[in-house]
């Protein structure tokens, strides 16, 4: 079943408290060398049948209205991925 992947990230100007906490934990585990962490969300929308341009447009619409809040987040990716098997 093909899936549409939607990535949502906090806007650059919005402080990301969760990302900041992760960035603080990394060096404690020996992972130095990472200057900053930002945490986003990935949604996978499975589609029965073919992903037509219409279905993709509906996914973009859903990403803009429900999956993200434009005040604090950007939709950074809406893309079809085919299953390996």
């Amino acid at each position, binding site marked *: 079943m093909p899936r549409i992947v939607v990535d949502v990230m906090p806007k650059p100007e*919005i402080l990301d*408290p969760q990302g900041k906490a992760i960035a603080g934990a990394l060096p404690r585990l020996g992972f130095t060398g990472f200057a900053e962490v930002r945490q986003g969300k990935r949604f996978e929308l499975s589609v029965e049948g073919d992903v037509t341009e219409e279905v993709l447009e509906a996914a973009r619409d859903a990403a803009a209205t429900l999956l993200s809040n434009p*005040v604090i987040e950007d939709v950074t990716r809406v893309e079809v991925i085919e299953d390996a098997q």
Partner: protein
Amino acid sequence: MTVETPLIGHSNAAVVDSSLSGVRVGVVTFPGSLDDRDALRAVRLAGGTGVALWHGDHDLKDVDAVIIPGGFSYGDYLRAGAISRFAPLMEQITAAATGGSLPVLGICNGFQVLTEAHLLPGSMVKNNHLHFLCKDQRLKVENSSTAWTSSYAEGSEIVVPLKNQDGQFVADERTLDELEGEGRVVFRYLGGNPNGSRRDIAGITNEHGNVVGLMPHPEHAVEAGFGPDSSALGEVEVRGGVDGLGIFTSVLQKLVNK
């Protein structure tokens, strides 16, 4: 009329204005709402009639005002308020509130629902310290001309509980300047910023003053014996703070005098 009997402390039945009992204030329950009962009780203690509303209905039951209560509707999944905002009843509420006629108050999760529904600008993100915070919070009432704050004097202070995890109010600089310039910052945190909210903002209103959202909980400071241990008005007995009651009397009086 039936007067709500306080469980502890002195009955305030004598000071309740009986002319307010005809005012119907609806409180919306979503799956995961927690403070709906408290909000209904606050309405009754202020002298009004509380009406329970269900998010899945299309029926506002002829209420004169609506409160969207605190809690974790839909478990805060996706974003706080993001799923509730599309509940059937929200269509009616949005339609009636947009033009300025229906007074709507969003408390905590209710404030988050109102921003997601675009009835109020900005949004809430996780507290800057990442912890759930529960404390009695001092606020300044900066706008006493809204439907929900008219019984306070402008610039007066109140102490009400604050309890949340996603309480950091954010908006872009232009929106913040607009809110400040138009006097639409209704409540501001005093005594230190508890969550990183931009410009210490605790509550705001829309352009008409009928829609108000705030993160702290006035409905938990309406009854002696169950309120905060302190009040901005002076010394009170243990759990004797009732500074939040004015929010509810404000809307009742406004609707009676309409």
